[in-house]
């Protein structure tokens, strides 16, 4: 446990002195927190005009808008999309950290002394994964709380209750950390197989694709995310996490990393 803690502290000490990583960790949450609040403010200022818009578009939102005015429905719709975006955040943030974790050490030539210590592969990888996951999840939760408080001030209680349904809280506080671990395991796995940090980062970023499809699906009305979908995603991701963490350890070949990379 002490060795895992040491790796975590080492990763944080190193990573947070890297401006690129700091930018990645700070920029996305700032945008994702500010954007919905600005959009809500703008929407509220045009709410008078929205009331006169044809109710035809209400059909598009389906059961999500039952019993709501069109303006409220638009707000709920937007808040749902943005909440969904908060599930992308913890996947996007740690990819840079995790992608650099193995391949970055190798290019800096610090991996060999590290592997020469009596540290097991599990300790090393768990340390690196946790070091990448914790900031991502913490920043996501913090950004979400700021966003939620801002929304509470800007929308009425009905809209707020719809937008902060337990389903979304489950998504943010339980499914998001699982998604973070998924992204990090993939990034660490890719990072221990490729020789360039940029390639590791780009390949690992592909994990975001299914989530983007989910956002697009919800935006265009193809999918209406409900409790069942969130629980299903949670279960699938939890199983995938177990498999990927196991594979990360199995695919981490000390000898190949030391001898094939120049």
């Amino acid at each position, binding site marked *: 446990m002490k060795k895992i803690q040491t790796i975590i502290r080492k990763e944080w000490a190193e990573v947070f002195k890297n401006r690129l990583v700091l930018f990645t960790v700070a920029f996305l949450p700032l945008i994702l927190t500010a954007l919905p609040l600005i959009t809500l403010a703008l929407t509220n200022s045009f709410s008078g005009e929205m009331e006169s818009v044809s109710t035809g578009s209400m059909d598009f939102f389906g059961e999500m808008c039952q019993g709501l005015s069109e303006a409220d429905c638009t707000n709920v719709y937007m808040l749902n999309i943005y909440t969904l975006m908060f599930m992308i955040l913890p996947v996007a943030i740690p990819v840079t950290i995790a992608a650099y974790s193995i391949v970055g050490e190798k290019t800096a030539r*610090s991996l060999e002394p590290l592997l020469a210590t009596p540290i097991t592969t599990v300790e090393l990888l768990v340390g690196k994964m946790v070091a990448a996951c914790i900031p991502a999840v913490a920043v996501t939760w913090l950004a979400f709380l700021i966003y939620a408080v801002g929304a509470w001030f800007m929308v009425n209680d009905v809209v707020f209750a719809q937008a902060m349904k337990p389903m979304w809280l489950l998504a943010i506080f339980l499914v998001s950390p699982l998604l973070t671990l998924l992204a990090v395991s993939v990034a660490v796995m890719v990072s221990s197989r490729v020789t360039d940090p940029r390639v590791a980062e780009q390949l690992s970023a592909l994990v975001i694709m299914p989530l983007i499809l989910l956002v697009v699906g919800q935006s265009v009305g193809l999918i209406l995310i409900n409790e069942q979908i969130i629980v299903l995603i949670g279960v699938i991701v939890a199983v995938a996490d177990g498999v990927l963490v196991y594979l990360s350890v199995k695919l981490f070949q000390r000898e190949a990393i030391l001898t094939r990379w120049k």
Partner: protein
Amino acid sequence: MIKTENLTKKFGDNLAVDRLTLDIGEGEVFGFLGPNGAGKTTTVRMLTSLIAPTAGTAVVNGFQIGYDDYDIRRSVGILTETPGLYDRLSAWRNLTIFATLYEVADVPGQVEKYLRMLGLWERRNDEAGTFSKGMRQKLAIARALLHEPRILFLDEPTSGLDPEAAKLVRDFIEELKEEGRTIFICTHNLDEADRLCDRVAVFKTRLRVVDTTKGLREQMYGRQVVFHLAETAVSYLPIVQNQPYLRHVEAVDNKLVIALDDPETYNPDLIRQLVEAGANIQFVGELRHSLEDIYLQLVNQA
């Protein structure tokens, strides 16, 4: 302390280390000499359990590689070819991380001890990335010693250092030698090997020779004594060349180069005969071939 038997490593079809058999005793400083790509680093990596051998066995500090890898890694120290420090972290932080990973009981105490010993204490809070090459190398050596290993592997310890920094590192290795640690040094620096090592091995994929540097010189060239005369030496050749204890004699300008097994016994007799023949001997000395001559001859033979 280190015993290998037919240790072999192949990377695909490429044979990197071929049936290496060595026996290195406790407290010995062992020089492992060879050109680039000879397989020296691969050997060190096998002996520190970083990579597995393709065939053969090795026992390091009583632990067998491939079976007791964790114990080997815990009981040996390694200075890798490049220092591999965390440049954004301070010297103190760099060492603290490794002391914890090596399960050192008194982390701050050990870190302070080696920072002071290597003259880095005043710079302990500075980022390793700001250090000079020599300081980086010293920090990497400190890192290898934090857990007080009895066996130390040093891969090119003075490579790329200026003469002053190289001397500091060499002096420190001398101190470690006095502490009785077993030190395995891979080096290109033959002068360094000559000065530091009890025995050296010349290696190029397979072991060419192992001996003390003195033994190697005798093996290759025998012992040679040079008589510097005030006049041309060739006229004195008949005086000395029939002596039964001489292996070889040669006149070069005003020098007589004589190969013989026991110069301490026979030099007085040679001097007497030459003086009686009218030779004006200016001085007498033993011809010492450099380790470089021996190394180049062995490597080129390979």
